[in-house]
């Protein structure tokens, strides 16, 4: 595209003075060029007319003895403006001359040429203007795009900041982690105390204490009032090794009343009932909810008193009594002690418990007087309510010595959860639909019927329900039932549960609910 005259002038004007002067002198040796303006005007006119081009001007060598080129930009601009104006005047003069010539018939060709030149200039100026507008528009677009990006960034940052603001810190988790870290740090000290047999003394000094008392409603979600209509308060302890709470655990008011009765009265409780009715977990979750330590001692056929109470041993050539898990827990304030499957142990091996389980007991054992530390709760759990079992379903259990059972003020028969609560628990634990949980629980409840009248079929527990429903995610329905519910039964009882499957389990409904 042809350059406009102004543009040519601007380019030429920016060349060094000496170079411009030399080029002008060379281009028109007869012209008396005195200033750069005149030189620029001359050269621009020549370039514009096509007589020469800018590269020729730029190729002219600067005379060695010439003046130094202008370096002052402001001054150069002034000069440029002057040059432009001078060139403009010359262009105007040329145009005027062309106009005048145009009026003369003899100069028609020249006039036409001038007219074309003017038109070309006008076109060039217009094109320049369009290009400028386009460039400005493009720049505006880029700016707008950048602004949009910036806005996005700001929005993102705002969202991140917002999400940070909504993050909730689980204080229980933090507390548990801190407690675990502290327990780890103090492990050597703890070992040293145990090695020295001083845990009872240290425990009473550094053990858990009651830090709060809250209504049962706040802790268990169940409002429990005493006989006078007052809210029953729950002791909250600060045991660092309290077990973690199960958010899906469902409390039964009936059971909870016994636990709250026992919390401050050294009342021992006996939990009996079918497996899977929540006996062990009830003890553990009570400890978790109230910030207590929890110790579970599993009994078996060959459990000896020394196993859980303690026994003497040689340490550094001396005979030292080493307390067992029961005595250590018994000496640690707040501890919930669960004597699990206690009817599996021989009656004689349980006899030492009798003394410890007395109210305000002070039993001399292992060379020291053992006392129940504050807040210690003792629960026993078995499947037969201490009566043993002849049916074979709970093989190995024996009838308990009545003097031991007598130490447990209340013997509580645990039942499976009521239908609605069991459905709730299943939904919470599996995330399945309520309809599916109801369907499966209905079948399981039917399968439990008659168990207590001596039917050999064991009662499928809520664990079976949860296992069955979880199995549905990948197993065929029949296989999930067979392995989660049926397989643990003897052959003839398993057949009964297969019959229950036929009568109660609707595969179409299940397929729809798990889809």
């Amino acid at each position, binding site marked *: 595209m042809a350059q406009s005259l102004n543009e040519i002038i601007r380019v030429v004007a920016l060349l060094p003075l000496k170079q411009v002067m030399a080029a002008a002198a060379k281009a028109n040796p007869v012209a008396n060029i005195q200033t750069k303006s005149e030189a620029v005007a001359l050269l621009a006119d020549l370039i514009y007319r096509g007589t020469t081009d800018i590269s020729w001007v730029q190729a002219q060598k600067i005379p060695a003895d010439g003046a130094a080129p202008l370096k002052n930009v402001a001054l150069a601009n002034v000069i440029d403006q002057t040059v432009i104006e001078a060139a403009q005047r010359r262009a105007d003069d040329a145009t005027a001359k062309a106009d005048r010539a145009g009026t003369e018939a003899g100069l028609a060709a020249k006039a036409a040429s001038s007219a074309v030149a003017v038109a070309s200039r006008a076109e060039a100026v217009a094109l320049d203007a369009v290009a400028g507008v386009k460039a400005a528009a493009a720049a505006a677009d880029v700016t707008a795009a950048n602004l949009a990006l910036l806005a996005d960034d700001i929005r993102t940052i705002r969202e991140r900041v917002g999400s940070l603001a909504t993050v909730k810190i689980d204080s229980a988790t933090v507390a548990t982690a801190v407690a675990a870290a502290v327990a780890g740090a103090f492990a050597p000290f703890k070992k040293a105390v145990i090695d020295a047999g001083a845990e009872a003394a240290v425990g009473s000094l550094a053990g858990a204490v009651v830090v709060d008392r809250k209504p049962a409603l706040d802790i268990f979600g169940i409002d429990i009032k005493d006989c006078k209509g007052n809210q029953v308060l729950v002791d909250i302890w600060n045991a660092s090794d309290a077990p973690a709470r199960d958010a899906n655990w469902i409390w039964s008011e009936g059971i909870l009343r016994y636990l709250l009765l026992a919390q401050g009265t050294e009342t021992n409780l006996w939990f009996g009932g079918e497996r899977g009715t929540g006996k062990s977990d009830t003890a553990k979750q009570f400890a978790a909810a109230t910030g207590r330590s929890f110790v579970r001692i599993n009994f078996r056929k060959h459990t000896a008193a020394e196993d859980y109470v303690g026994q003497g041993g040689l340490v550094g050539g001396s005979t030292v009594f080493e307390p067992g898990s029961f005595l250590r827990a018994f000496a640690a304030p707040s501890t919930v002690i669960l004597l699990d499957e206690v009817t599996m142990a021989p009656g004689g091996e349980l006899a030492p418990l009798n003394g410890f389980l007395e109210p305000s007991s002070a039993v001399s054992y292992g060379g020291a007087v053992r006392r129940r530390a504050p807040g210690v709760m003792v629960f026993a759990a078995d499947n037969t309510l201490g009566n043993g079992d002849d049916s074979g379903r709970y093989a190995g259990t024996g009838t308990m010595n009545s003097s031991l059972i007598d130490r447990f003020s209340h013997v509580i028969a645990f039942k499976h959860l009521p239908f609605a609560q069991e459905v709730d628990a299943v939904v919470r634990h599996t995330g399945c639909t309520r309809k599916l949980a109801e369907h499966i629980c209905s079948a399981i409840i039917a399968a439990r019927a008659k168990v207590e009248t001596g*039917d050999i079929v064991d009662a499928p527990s809520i664990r079976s329900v949860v296992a069955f429903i979880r199995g549905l995610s990948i197993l065929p329905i029949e296989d999930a039932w067979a392995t989660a519910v049926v397989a643990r039964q003897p*052959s003839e009882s398993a057949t009964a549960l297969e019959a229950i499957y036929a009568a109660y*389990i609707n595969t179409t409904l299940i397929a729809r609910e798990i889809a």
Partner: protein
Amino acid sequence: MKRTFRGWEVRTGVEAAAHKICSDMGLPTVRIVWSSKVSTAAINSSGKMYLADIRDDATISRALFNRYVGYIVHELLHRKYTNFAYNSDKQYIQQLHNAIEDIWIERKGIAAKLTGNIGPLLTELIGQMVAEALAAPGMDWTAVEQYPFVLAVFGRRYAPPVPVAQGLLPIFIEASSRVDDCASTSDTLVLAKWVYDQLQQTLPPDPRPAEPKPGDQPGDKPGDKPGDQPGEEGKEGAGKGQEGPQGGAPGDGKGKVAGNPGKAQRVTSADTARETEPGARPAPGDSGSGTYDIGSVRQPYHHANTYGSSSQNWSLK
């Protein structure tokens, strides 16, 4: 799960399941009697449930096992809904009554969802019965003895289609509709008598010469004696047995009809009907021979009390 069971497993499992389902339905206890003398499931007013016995070492398919489960559910529906005091002296009306009562109790049981899978279970049960009936050699669907059975199938909306002799359909459609209005066993008995009247009054007489049939004396009660049942299903007939998929009965939207085997005949007071109750019998080599009868174990002289006297007041339901 298992595809086959041993006979002893089925007996103990089904019995245990019966007690559980009975308990789950909130019903009084039942007693299971495994008898080699019955081919159909039955229960009486005292809660004694009769099931066809199975040899200890018989191999029982899951399909037959499920059928036994279906029986106990069906019989427990009788335990729940049926009033055993209502009965008829006439065998034909008694079978019509059984058919209508079965339809009524199953509709109620399914509507109440008494067990989670009751619908598919009873569908499978009636489906097996219909399949056996359709496959039976010499089955004459126009024979009057078949009408109560056809009604029992037709009225179960979930049952597969059966051939319905020409002329029966309007009566059965109306009867099926009226079942929904029944509120008790007395109502179903009234409806059975209405159907009986229709079969006597609106159908043409049988042009074929009458054949003497064993045990069809008026007033006789074949259902009283379990030992009477074997052999009833193999009666000779005209051998038509046309079957043709034909969709449901026009306009009723209830029962389904598999074809038109011919014209229905008028029922006379001398006619008797085939058993309508679900039938259960292991394969010939697997059926019981008295090796195990929990009823006799629990109650000495049980057989003498029940089977030795026709005055025992129980009926097949």
